[in-house]
């Protein structure tokens, strides 16, 4: 099996052999929910950080007992996976107060998902400033203590530095992948690329880096995709499934970049530890200051710039910003961004959806029309 094939099958938990392997060796897997979870620390402590996803979750019946129809289907699907045993393999779970719906899951999960013995919540301030950083830093320090105590692992400065290197390496490789996608004739479709990207957060990183490096070789050797009608960037609410991207590409678009939390926002800045600097602090600094999530206040301009930058660099014809119904953060963000970008000549389709795409017909119509709109320029 080629590296690409191996990475592409990963997103399905059942097919993810690394989970079994890792557990088989008696090692721990700890889940996490959002951008501000310091993966490097997990890894340095010999723990495999697994980003919670709900790929292909079709029902939310179990979750709806606790959550409500006014909660977004992303959080409900994640909870559904937890309640239905999809995450029984987790030894622990690190929550963050990322948004209203996810932060509350800490409580519900604790009460009703018995398989997870260890839970921790890292709290992140809602704006970016030095005193806020001090708070977050302390949270990270405390988490590191708690995590290592709980799993009785030691964690040296060396471990951290090594872990940081591994993660920086992935960032370099992912950047390279995004570079390739910028070509006029991208050697890889958005859907395929997305699968490779998703794989990063659901398998051990060393192995991932090795596979991705190999995959990149293969991709570079391909000849590019020519017959597309429009280059498209996607952004907005969490997306952990390629279904939407497949729809876009089945309608003649090609997704060449994104501003997704699980996508490009993952690897913008490298963690740099100054000589005899504290690696923990460096980690905290990178997560806190880099690339704000829409939950962060007074950061709209920087998010807007980032969105425009990504769009320009990949020379897109249009941007599709999706908002999951009842996702306040992204719903407002999408509308505000659209108002900024349209006048700058970047067409935006702001598309409401559910996490598990229902009523695909209507979604297709909107996307098709949008592609018809932008492909004529």
């Amino acid at each position, binding site marked *: 099996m080629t590296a690409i094939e191996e990475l592409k099958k990963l997103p399905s938990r059942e097919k993810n052999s690394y989970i079994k392997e890792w557990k088989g060796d008696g090692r721990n897997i700890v889940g996490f929910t959002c951008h501000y979870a310091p993966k490097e620390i997990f890894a340095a402590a010999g723990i495999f950080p697994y980003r919670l996803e709900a790929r292909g979750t079709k029902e939310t019946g*179990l979750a*709806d007992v606790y959550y409500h129809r006014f909660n977004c289907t992303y959080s409900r699907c994640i909870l559904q996976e937890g309640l239905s045993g999809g995450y029984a393999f987790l030894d622990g779970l690190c929550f963050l107060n990322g948004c209203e719906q996810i932060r509350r899951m800490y409580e519900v999960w604790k009460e009703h998902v018995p398989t997870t013995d260890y839970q921790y919540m890292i709290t992140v301030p809602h704006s970016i400033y030095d005193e806020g950083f001090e708070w977050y830093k302390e949270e990270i320090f405390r988490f590191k203590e708690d995590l290592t105590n709980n799993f009785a692992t030691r964690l040296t400065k060396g471990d951290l530095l090594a872990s940081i290197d591994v993660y920086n390496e992935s960032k370099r490789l992912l950047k390279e992948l995004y570079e390739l996608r910028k070509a006029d004739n991208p050697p890889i479709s958005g859907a395929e690329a997305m699968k490779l990207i998703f794989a990063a957060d659901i398998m051990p990183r060393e192995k991932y880096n090795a596979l991705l490096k190999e995959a990149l070789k293969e991709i570079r050797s391909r000849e590019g995709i020519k017959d597309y009608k429009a280059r498209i960037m996607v952004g907005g609410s969490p997306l952990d499934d390629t279904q939407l991207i497949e729809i876009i590409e089945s309608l003649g678009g090609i997704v060449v970049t994104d501003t997704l939390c699980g996508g490009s926002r993952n690897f913008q800045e490298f963690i740099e530890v100054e000589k005899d600097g504290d690696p923990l602090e460096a980690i905290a600094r990178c997560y806190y200051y880099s690339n704000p999530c829409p939950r962060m206040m007074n950061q709209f301009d920087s998010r807007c710039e980032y969105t425009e930058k990504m769009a320009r660099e990949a020379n897109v014809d249009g941007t599709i910003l999706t908002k999951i119904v009842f996702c306040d953060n992204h719903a407002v963000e999408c509308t505000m961004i659209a108002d900024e970008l349209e006048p700058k000549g970047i067409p935006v389709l702001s598309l409401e959806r559910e996490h*598990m795409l229902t*009523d695909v*017909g209507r979604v297709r119509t909107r996307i098709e029309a949008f592609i018809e709109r932008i492909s004529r320029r």
Partner: protein
Amino acid sequence: MFYLGCDVGSMTTKTVILGNKDVVAYDIAANNGNLTKVVETSVNKVVSKAGVSLADIDVKGGTGMGEQYIPFDHSKEGIIKCLAVAVYWIHPHTRTVVDIGGLSTSVISINGHGKVLEYRTSDKCASGSGFFLKLAAQALELKVEDLGNIIIPCGERAHMGTQCAVFGESEIVSHINDGEEPEKIAAGINYSLGSSVATMINRLGGIQDIVATGGVAKNKGVLRAIEEILGMEVITLSSIDEQLVGALGAALCAQQRMQQG
């Protein structure tokens, strides 16, 4: 001694006449046009069936969201209480009542004396209601009654993402267009409705001895789905039409009031 109970629901009006022991006559009428007329006709039907005249019946109870359209004097009772009282009267072991009606679903937990402990009613949206089944049946060109008899194991059912009465319909149509067999779609519809009801039941919690009432309780497909998910039996009251329970309760409550004076 006769007692009359009338339950003016969202889609149908149910009337029963209760003798000393059991129901002696009943009627179920669709709510078309003027509700006051609907009620009148329905009531006239049952009294003549029972061979009495409305004047002879001095105890009359009314309930349902259209209760205000009952044109004669009667004692008003909340639908939740009516359901609890009636189910307890027929089947005292009941601890949980699930009423799936035209527009809304209620889950009621009752104690050993038929008193309501706690309940939840479905939230204001026509999804997951009898109305949804009605539209779905239309889209499949089936009778609602037949829709319920279609039961097939999971894995083979078509998946229904939405229960919005309107978009649900279009999802059904796109299933049809994708060449999905009507049976599988129908089973998918029953299942998705059943699972949303099961969710409501779980939401209330502390469930045992479930009795299902209301028009949708006639849909075996939905009931099987609920059982499949809850892993426990859901029974219906053999001695009375599922739809009449509310009306019966209204009669019983009126009777109680009279006895209490």
